C-alpha cells in the first residue's frame, strides 16, 4: 500500500496584507499554511488604516476569495481572518531554518502573551485594574494603554496580552480574572515544524520621530505627528472618534500641513530612496481632512515631487487640486512652536521669489517606509548577504524569488510597495510556492466528503437547538439557560433543546456529535461564541449526524448576550438571546435545503498577448500542468519590450530575456500558440468559456475552450506631434535615442547641449491623463548613456515631477551626480520649441533661478509616455471586459483586486493594466497565473450555497437584474430566451433580488419569506413563551 503523501505546507512569515493574501491563495488551493507574525496581532499596518486611496475608505474584505467563497469566513478582514487551512500564529518569530528546497525544518518562537487567549472572554476586567499606563503604540502614543492590553482594539476575538516590559507584576489582573487565564509566569515557547516552502512577508517599518536622530528636531510639539498617527486621529476607532483635533489640547485642527519625504530621499542619512507611498498617503489624508473637517479646513502639502505614478494616481491628484488642497514645492527645514501652540513653517516661493511664514494647527510628517530591521535577521537565517539597498537578494527578473530557491518574498520586503503591489506580490509569491509544491511529492488537504442527507429537508421543520454554556464565561449568571430551554421547548417545531459546554473543544464536539446523532430533528441551531471560527467544523460535525449543511445556523450567542447591552439590566440578556433565537428559528423554518454543486472546470487557460507578461503567465501555468492557448495578434512573440528594449538601467535585458522565454514557450507541450490571431467573441461562464479567435491571414475562425483567461495585451511607445516632433531630424523620442545609441546610428560625441522633455502629452487634460511610470527612469538611463560617451555634453532634463519612486531614486541621484541638470516646468508654462534652419530652439524658464533660458540643443529628446495597445477596446468588447478612458483595462478593484476583472475567470497582467516596469509586469503575470491555477488546479471548485437563481416561469425578461448585477454574473441568453446565472461569479449580494419586483430573481436561502418572518419575529412584542403558548 502506498504511503500517504504529506500535505503541502507553506510557512508565510508576516501577516500583513501581502502575507495574508499569499496565505489565502495557498489555502484556496488546499495547501496548509502557517501564518506567523512577530507582532501580537495580524493585519500589519493595515489594521491601523481605516481609509485607503482611492475610495478613501476600507475595502480589505475584497481580498477574500470570490469563488467558493464559503471556505473562508465572509467577515470583516480588519477584525479577523478565518480559513480552515490557515493556522494563524501571532507573536511568533521564525528563529531557525534548516533544510533545502521543498523540505525545510523551521523553528518558531512563540512569545508568551501571559494570557490564554483561547479561554479569555475578552471583557477586559484585568485592563480595568492594571495600574500601569504607557503610550499606546496602536494610536501612536496619542492615547495610553495598560500593561495588559488589546494590541488592536477592534479585533475579533479579543487577543489580549501582557507587556512584560512594563508590567509591575502586582498581580491585580490575576485576581480579578473571571476565567483564570492569566499566568504572569508564562514563558516563550519554541517549537519546530516541517514545511515545504517559505514565503517571507515581514513587511514594512515606518520612519518615526522617536527613533531617528534627524527627525527629533521636528518633534517640537505634540501637534507634529506622523502620517500614521494622523490616520489614527481620523479613524472612527481612533483617538477623537474620527474628528480632526490636535493632540495637544483637543481643539479642532483647521490648518494642517503635510511635510513630504520625511526620512526618505536623504543621501546624507544614507536613505537615498523614495518611500513610494507617501505622496498618495498625504493626498488621501489631505482629502480626508477636508472631507471630514469641512471646507474651512486648510490642507497644504509641502513636497518636492508629487509622485503620482500609479494607475489613476494622477487623476486622484487632480481631484485633490480641484478639492482645494494646496501644494507648495519646498522642502521645509523646520517647524517652530509658537507661544499660542500654533506651528510655523517658513518656505520659499521660487516663482514669487519671496519667503512666506505660514501658521498651522497641526503638522503631519509623511514618514516614509524604511526597509524593515528584520531584513538583516532574515538574511542571516538563510545565510545571505543583504544587497546594497539593504534588501534581501532576489532573482533578477523575479522580485518575489529569493536567490535561494524554494524561498519567496512579497510585500515591502521586496522593496517599497504600495497596497496593490503588496497584494499582487502576495499572489505571485503564493504562485511561486504552489509551482514548487506542485513539483513535489505532496498532496493537498482533501475536503472532508460528508454526504449531504437528502431526505430531511422534505420533512416538516423540526429544530434542534444547542446552546453552548461557554458563553457563561461572559458573565456567570447573565443568561438563564434554564429559562431559555423551557421557553424554547414550548414550540412544537422545536425538537429538543440541549445546553452543552465548550463546544469548541474536542470533548465538547464529541458530546455534541453524540447528542445530534440521537436527534430526530431536521434543522439545527447552535449558539456559541465566534461562529466565524467554528462554522465550518461545527457544520461538518452536524453533517455527520445527518443534518443538511444549509439547514444549520450557527450564531454568536456570546456577543448577543453582552453586545451593546453592558449598561442594561441583566434579565434583558436572557430576553435578547431568546428573541434572537426565535428570529433565527423563524428564518430556519422557512429555509430550503441548498445543495452545493461542483463546477465543471475546463482545465485550460487562455492567454491573450504574447509579450513578456503573456509568455511568462503561459509558461508559469504550463509548468504546473495547465494547458494554455496563447493568442498573439502579430506574427512574433515578445511584445514591445521583448523586441525593442535591449537593456534597462537596472541591468535587465528584455530582448534576450524574451528570447529565452520564447524558446521555453514554444517548446512546452502544454502551450499551443496561435500567432496572427485575434480574439473575436466569447461565451459561457467561469470554468467553461468558449472563445472564437480569428486568423488574420486567412480569416478562419477557431473555437477555443477554456476555464479562465489572462489578458496581457501590452502597450506601445506613445505618439506625439508636440514640440515640432517629426519636423526635424534632431528631435527624437527616448526610444529612438535608445535605439540610436545602441546601434551607433546616433552620434552624440560632438553634442554640446541635449535637452530632454518629460511628460510629453502625459498627465494633462488633453492628453494621456496618467503617468507612464517608466519615462523618467528611461530618460535618466539615456542621459547617463550619453554622458558616458560624451562627458562634456550638457544634458538638461525638463520635468514636472521626477517619478523615480522606490530605489529608482538612486538613479536620479546618480544622474545629478553625473552633472545632468534637472529643471522643473509647470503645465501652464511648458517649454517652447521652434525650428530655426531645421534645428530646434527651445525656450524655458529655469525654475530655481526663475530666469528664461534659450538654447539650441543638438538634440531634443521627447518622452511621450506609454500608450495602451490599440486593440484593447476590441478585446474588451469580445470578452465583455471594461476599458478605461485611457484605453487600459479596468481591474475589479485598484487596491484589493488589482489583477482580477469583475468578470469571474478573467485576469489582467502587464501593461494591459497600466504602464509599468518589466519586473512589475512579470510579477503581475505570475500573480495572474496563480489566480488561474488556483481555479483550474485539481481541487474541486464548488459554487457557493447561497447564490441567486431565476424562477423562469414568472420571469418577464426585463433584464433589470442583468443590468444591475455588479459581477456580470447574470446574462440574457437570446437563444434560450432566458436569464442565465453564472453560479461561480454570483456573490449573492442580492441586487438582482431587489431589482426584480416579483422575485423571479431570488437568492437561495435569503428569500423574502424568510426575511419577512424575521422582521415579524423581531417586532413581536410578546414572545410566545411569555404568554405560555
Amino acid at each position, binding site marked *: 500500500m502506498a504511503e500517504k503523501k504529506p500535505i503541502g505546507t507553506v510557512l508565510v512569515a508576516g501577516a500583513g496584507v501581502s502575507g495574508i493574501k499569499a496565505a489565502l491563495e495557498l489555502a484556496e488551493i488546499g495547501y496548509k499554511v502557517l501564518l506567523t507574525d512577530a507582532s501580537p496581532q495580524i493585519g500589519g499596518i493595515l489594521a491601523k488604516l481605516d481609509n485607503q486611496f482611492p475610495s478613501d*475608505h476600507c475595502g480589505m474584505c475584497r481580498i477574500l476569495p470570490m469563488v467558493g467563497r464559503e471556505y473562508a469566513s465572509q467577515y470583516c478582514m480588519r477584525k479577523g481572518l478565518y480559513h480552515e487551512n490557515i493556522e494563524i500564529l501571532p507573536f511568533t518569530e521564525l528563529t531557525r531554518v534548516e533544510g533545502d528546497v521543498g523540505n525545510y525544518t523551521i523553528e518558531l518562537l512563540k512569545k508568551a502573551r501571559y494570557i490564554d487567549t483561547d479561554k479569555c472572554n475578552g471583557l477586559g476586567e484585568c485592563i480595568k485594574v492594571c495600574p500601569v499606563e504607557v503610550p499606546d503604540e496602536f494610536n501612536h502614543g496619542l492615547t495610553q494603554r495598560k500593561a495588559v492590553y488589546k494590541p488592536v482594539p*477592534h479585533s475579533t476575538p479579543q487577543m489580549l496580552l501582557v507587556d512584560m516590559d512594563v508590567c509591575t507584576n502586582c498581580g491585580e489582573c490575576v485576581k480579578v480574572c473571571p476565567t483564570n487565564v492569566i499566568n504572569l509566569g508564562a514563558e516563550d515557547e519554541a517549537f519546530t515544524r516541517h514545511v515545504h516552502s517559505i514565503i517571507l512577508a515581514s513587511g514594512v517599518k515606518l520612519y518615526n520621530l522617536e527613533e531617528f536622530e534627524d527627525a527629533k528636531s521636528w518633534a517640537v510639539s505634540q501637534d507634529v505627528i506622523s502620517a500614521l498617527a494622523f490616520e489614527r486621529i481620523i479613524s472612527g476607532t481612533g483617538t477623537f472618534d*474620527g474628528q480632526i483635533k490636535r493632540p495637544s489640547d483637543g481643539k479642532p485642527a483647521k490648518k494642517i500641513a503635510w511635510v513630504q519625504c520625511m526620512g526618505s530621499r536623504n543621501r546624507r542619512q544614507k536613505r537615498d530612496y523614495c518611500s513610494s507611498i507617501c505622496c498618495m498617503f498625504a493626498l488621501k489624508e489631505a482629502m480626508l481632512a477636508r472631507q471630514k473637517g469641512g471646507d474651512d479646513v486648510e490642507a497644504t502639502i509641502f513636497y518636492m515631487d508629487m509622485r503620482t505614478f500609479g494607475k489613476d494616481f494622477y487623476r486622484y491628484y487632480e481631484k485633490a487640486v480641484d478639492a482645494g488642497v494646496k501644494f507648495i514645492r519646498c522642502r521645509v527645514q523646520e517647524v517652530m512652536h509658537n507661544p499660542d501652540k500654533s506651528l510655523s513653517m517658513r518656505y520659499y516661493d521660487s516663482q514669487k521669489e519671496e519667503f512666506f511664514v505660514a501658521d498651522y494647527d497641526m503638522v503631519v510628517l509623511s514618514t516614509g517606509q524604511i526597509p524593515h530591521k528584520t531584513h538583516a535577521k532574515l538574511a542571516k537565517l538563510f545565510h545571505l548577504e543583504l544587497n546594497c539597498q539593504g534588501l534581501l537578494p532576489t532573482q533578477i527578473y523575479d522580485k518575489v524569488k529569493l536567490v535561494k530557491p524554494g524561498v519567496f518574498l512579497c510585500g515591502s520586503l521586496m522593496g517599497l510597495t504600495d497596497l496593490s503591489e503588496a497584494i499582487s506580490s502576495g499572489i505571485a509569491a503564493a504562485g511561486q510556492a504552489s509551482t514548487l509544491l506542485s513539483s513535489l511529492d505532496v498532496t493537498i488537504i482533501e475536503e472532508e466528503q460528508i454526504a449531504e442527507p437528502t431526505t430531511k429537508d422534505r420533512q416538516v421543520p423540526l429544530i434542534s437547538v444547542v446552546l453552548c454554556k461557554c458563553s457563561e464565561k461572559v458573565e456567570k449568571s447573565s443568561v438563564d439557560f434554564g429559562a431559555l430551554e423551557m421557553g424554547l421547548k414550548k414550540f412544537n417545531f422545536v425538537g429538543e433543546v440541549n445546553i452543552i459546554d465548550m463546544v469548541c473543544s474536542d470533548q465538547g464536539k464529541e458530546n455534541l456529535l453524540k447528542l445530534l446523532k440521537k436527534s430526530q430533528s431536521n434543522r439545527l441551531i447552535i449558539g456559541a461564541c465566534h461562529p466565524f471560527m467554528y462554522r465550518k467544523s461545527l457544520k461538518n460535525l452536524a453533517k455527520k449526524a445527518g443534518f443538511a449543511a444549509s439547514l444549520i445556523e450557527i450564531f454568536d450567542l456570546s456577543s448577543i448576550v453582552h453586545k451593546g447591552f453592558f449598561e442594561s439590566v441583566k434579565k434583558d440578556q436572557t430576553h435578547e438571546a431568546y428573541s434572537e433565537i426565535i428570529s433565527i428559528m423563524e428564518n430556519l423554518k422557512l429555509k430550503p435545503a441548498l445543495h452545493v454543486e461542483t463546477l465543471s472546470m475546463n482545465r485550460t487557460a487562455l492567454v491573450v498577448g504574447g509579450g513578456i507578461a503573456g509568455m511568462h503567465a503561459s509558461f508559469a501555468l504550463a509548468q504546473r500542468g495547465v494547458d494554455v492557448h496563447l493568442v498573439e495578434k502579430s506574427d512574433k512573440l515578445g511584445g514591445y519590450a521583448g523586441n525593442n528594449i535591449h537593456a534597462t538601467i537596472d541591468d535587465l535585458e528584455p530582448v534576450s530575456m524574451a528570447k529565452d522565454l520564447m524558446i521555453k514557450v514554444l517548446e512546452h507541450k502544454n502551450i499551443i500558440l496561435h500567432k496572427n490571431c485575434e480574439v473575436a467573441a466569447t461565451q459561457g461562464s467561469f470554468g467553461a468559456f468558449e472563445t472564437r479567435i480569428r486568423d488574420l491571414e486567412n480569416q478562419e475562425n477557431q473555437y477555443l475552450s477554456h476555464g479562465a483567461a489572462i489578458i496581457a495585451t501590452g502597450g506601445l511607445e506613445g505618439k506625439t506631434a508636440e514640440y515640432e516632433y517629426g519636423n526635424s531630424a534632431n528631435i527624437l523620442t527616448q526610444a529612438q535615442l535608445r535605439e540610436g545609441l545602441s546601434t551607433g546610428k546616433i552620434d552624440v560625441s560632438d553634442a554640446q547641449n541635449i535637452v530632454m522633455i518629460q511628460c510629453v502629452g502625459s498627465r494633462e487634460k488633453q492628453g494621456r491623463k496618467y503617468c507612464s511610470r517608466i519615462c523618467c527612469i528611461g530618460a535618466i538611463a539615456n542621459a547617463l548613456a550619453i554622458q558616458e560617451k560624451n562627458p562634456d555634453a550638457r544634458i538638461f532634463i525638463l520635468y514636472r515631477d521626477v517619478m523615480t519612486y522606490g530605489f529608482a531614486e538612486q538613479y536620479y541621484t546618480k544622474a545629478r551626480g553625473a552633472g545632468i541638470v534637472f529643471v522643473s516646468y509647470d503645465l501652464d508654462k511648458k517649454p517652447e520649441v521652434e525650428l530655426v534652419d531645421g534645428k530646434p530652439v527651445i525656450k524655458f524658464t529655469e525654475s530655481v533661478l526663475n530666469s528664461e533660458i534659450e538654447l539650441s540643443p543638438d538634440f531634443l529628446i521627447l518622452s511621450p509616455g506609454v500608450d495602451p495597445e490599440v486593440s484593447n477596446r476590441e478585446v474588451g468588447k469580445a470578452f465583455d471586459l471594461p476599458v478605461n478612458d485611457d484605453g487600459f483595462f479596468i481591474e475589479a478593484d485598484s487596491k484589493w483586486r488589482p489583477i482580477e476583472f469583475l468578470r469571474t475567470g478573467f485576469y489582467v497582467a502587464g501593461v494591459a493594466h497600466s504602464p509599468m516596469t518589466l519586473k512589475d509586469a512579470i510579477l503581475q503575470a505570475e500573480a495572474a497565473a496563480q489566480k488561474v491555477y488556483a481555479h483550474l488546479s485539481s481541487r474541486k471548485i464548488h459554487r457557493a450555497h447561497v447564490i441567486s437563481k431565476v424562477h423562469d416561469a414568472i420571469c418577464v425578461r426585463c433584464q433589470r437584474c442583468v443590468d444591475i448585477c455588479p459581477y456580470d454574473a447574470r446574462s440574457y441568453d437570446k437563444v434560450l430566451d432566458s436569464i442565465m446565472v453564472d453560479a461561480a461569479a454570483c456573490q449573492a449580494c442580492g441586487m438582482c*433580488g431587489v431589482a426584480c419586483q416579483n422575485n423571479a430573481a431570488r437568492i437561495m436561502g435569503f428569500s423574502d419569506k424568510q426575511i419577512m418572518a424575521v422582521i415579524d419575529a423581531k417586532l413581536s412584542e410578546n414572545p410566545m413563551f411569555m404568554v405560555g403558548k
Partner: protein
Amino acid sequence: MSEFEPKIVGFFCNWCTFTAADLAGTSRLSYPSNIKIIRMMCSGMVDPKYVLKAFLNGADGVLIGGCWPGDCHYINGNLKARRRVAMLTEILKEYGIDEQRFWLRWIAASEGTMLRDVANEMTDKLKQLGPSPFNLSSNRKDLTAMGGL
C-alpha cells in the same frame, strides 16, 4: 406611565454596519436596545418590501446601515440602496411616515462610535416624535399591543 420606547428595525450590511455594531459591542460602547438588528449581506439587498413590512408590523423607525460610497463590498450596492431609500421616503411621507423615521446611514466597519451615535440620535428623535402613525391608526388605536398587520 413609562417612557415610550420606540422600536427600530435596523437592516445592517454584513460588511460595514453589522461589523460596526459588533465593534460597538466589543468596544463597550453602549447603544440603546431599541434597535432590532437584521443582518443583510448588503444595504442594496434591502427590498422596499422589508421596510414597508417593518413599518406595517409596528416599527416606529427603520434604519438601513451601509458602507460609504465607494466602499461597498459588492461594488455599488449602497448606491442602489440610496436611490431606493429616496424613492421610498417619498411614498412613506405621503402617508404620514416622516423622513425622520426612515434613515439610511453610512457606517463603516471601524465606525463603532458612529453607530452608537446614530442609534442614540435616532432613538431620541423617535421618542420625540412618538409612535409611528401606522401604530396609531384608527383600526389599532384602541388596542394596546402593537404588532403585525
